[in-house]
């Protein structure tokens, strides 16, 4: 009996010490982690809105309400996480950066930011979190000439459709070869962003 109590006490001590150590490290790293995440987000914003000098949170933005708008429009796999306004040097609004999470990826959630100007032109997207198959779906992250992501740059904001037979008209997007699920997830995510953007400029959820 004594032995049992001793064993339990030692185990409790180890667990409590480990718990304290974790709490301590958490407190120390909380601010740097928040800063690092903020920096990553700012970088994604800057990628999709190179002209903007600063980004400002949208007044009265509510993630749940925004998500409901796109869910009602049929994009049930997508949530709108955040939306910020891109401002130029003198503080005039240039457009919006909308952060979308799609749960329709092959390897789980894909989170990315889409930049759309007030003239309804898409500036492309930048992925902040993705875990697709290397060499297939991961290509959605590649940037530059001829990549999947470059298809969205300078396109008019409309509802896009993925095609496997070569894009012919302005609303078609070429799928990543052998990664149709990823292609559809990202494209529908962009569509959800466009839908929310339309509701913004159409004077729906926000004045």
């Amino acid at each position: 009996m004594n032995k049992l109590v001793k064993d339990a006490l030692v185990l409790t001590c180890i667990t409590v010490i480990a718990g304290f150590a974790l709490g301590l490290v958490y407190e120390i790293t909380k601010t740097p982690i928040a800063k690092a995440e903020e920096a990553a987000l700012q970088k994604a914003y800057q990628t999709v809105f190179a002209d903007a000098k600063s980004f400002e949170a949208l007044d009265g933005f509510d993630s749940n309400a925004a998500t409901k708008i796109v869910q009602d429009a049929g994009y049930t796999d997508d949530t709108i996480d955040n939306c910020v306004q891109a401002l130029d040097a003198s503080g005039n609004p240039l457009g919006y950066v909308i952060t979308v999470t799609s749960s329709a990826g092959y390897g789980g959630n894909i989170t990315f930011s889409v930049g759309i100007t007030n003239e309804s032109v898409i500036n492309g997207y930048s992925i902040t979190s993705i875990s697709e198959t290397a060499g297939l779906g991961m290509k959605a992250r590649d940037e530059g000439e001829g990549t999947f992501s470059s298809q969205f740059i300078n396109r008019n904001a409309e509802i896009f459709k993925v095609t496997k037979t070569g894009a012919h008209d302005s609303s078609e997007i070429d799928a990543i070869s052998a990664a149709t699920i990823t292609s559809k997830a990202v494209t529908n995510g962009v569509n959800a962003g466009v839908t929310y953007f339309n509701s913004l400029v159409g004077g729906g959820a926000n004045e």
Partner: protein
Amino acid sequence: MNKNLERLYNGLWKENPTFVLMLGMCPTLAVTTSAINGIGMGLSTTVVLVLSNMMISALRNLIPDRVRMPAFIVVVASFVTIVQFLMQGFLPSLYTSLGIYIPLIVVNCIILGRAESYASKNPVIPSMFDGIGMGLGFTVGLTLIGIVREVLGNGSIFDVAIKPLDNFHITLFGLAPGAFIVLGFLVALMNVVRRKMEEKGRPLAKAQGCLSGDCAGCTLSSACTGKEEK
């Protein structure tokens, strides 16, 4: 050869966790889609393995035998979480590329295996070298499997396309079935090597992982099954 160097050699070659002990097959299957992933997972495991080996070795006289399993798991899980927090806060770029592997380290049986079979019975410094050796051995194993799968599955090596192979790659090898196929060939090959070495009278260390057929090869077998070791 001094004892510490012997531990390094042991982990890298004689008892290589991936090829000889067949430990940690779960992360091996999951992350070896490319060579760079193998290196990333291997090195993060090494860091946790070194820290947990040292801590468990330092506490080896304090932890009662009967509760050693939960004590080891608490230590390992705490280190994994601490490493994750530190990386996320201070090395965010490294975290973006390795982040998904870090929680996987907790379930890596190499760490618990080494804690049980080496660190809990030996002093701190040799345990540290055991961790470095085993960790690097795991890294080498994962990287080699990653290279095979990346070359066959994506026609590239360390993300650099090999011409003209990149037009003729077999996508299957980048996916889960490819992992099992490569692992199957690997186990077959190791069984041949094992038999050859036994004939020569220099048997390899016994496989400890689940791939030995039952849990008999594992030093933790008695803890899981209640059966005494033979």
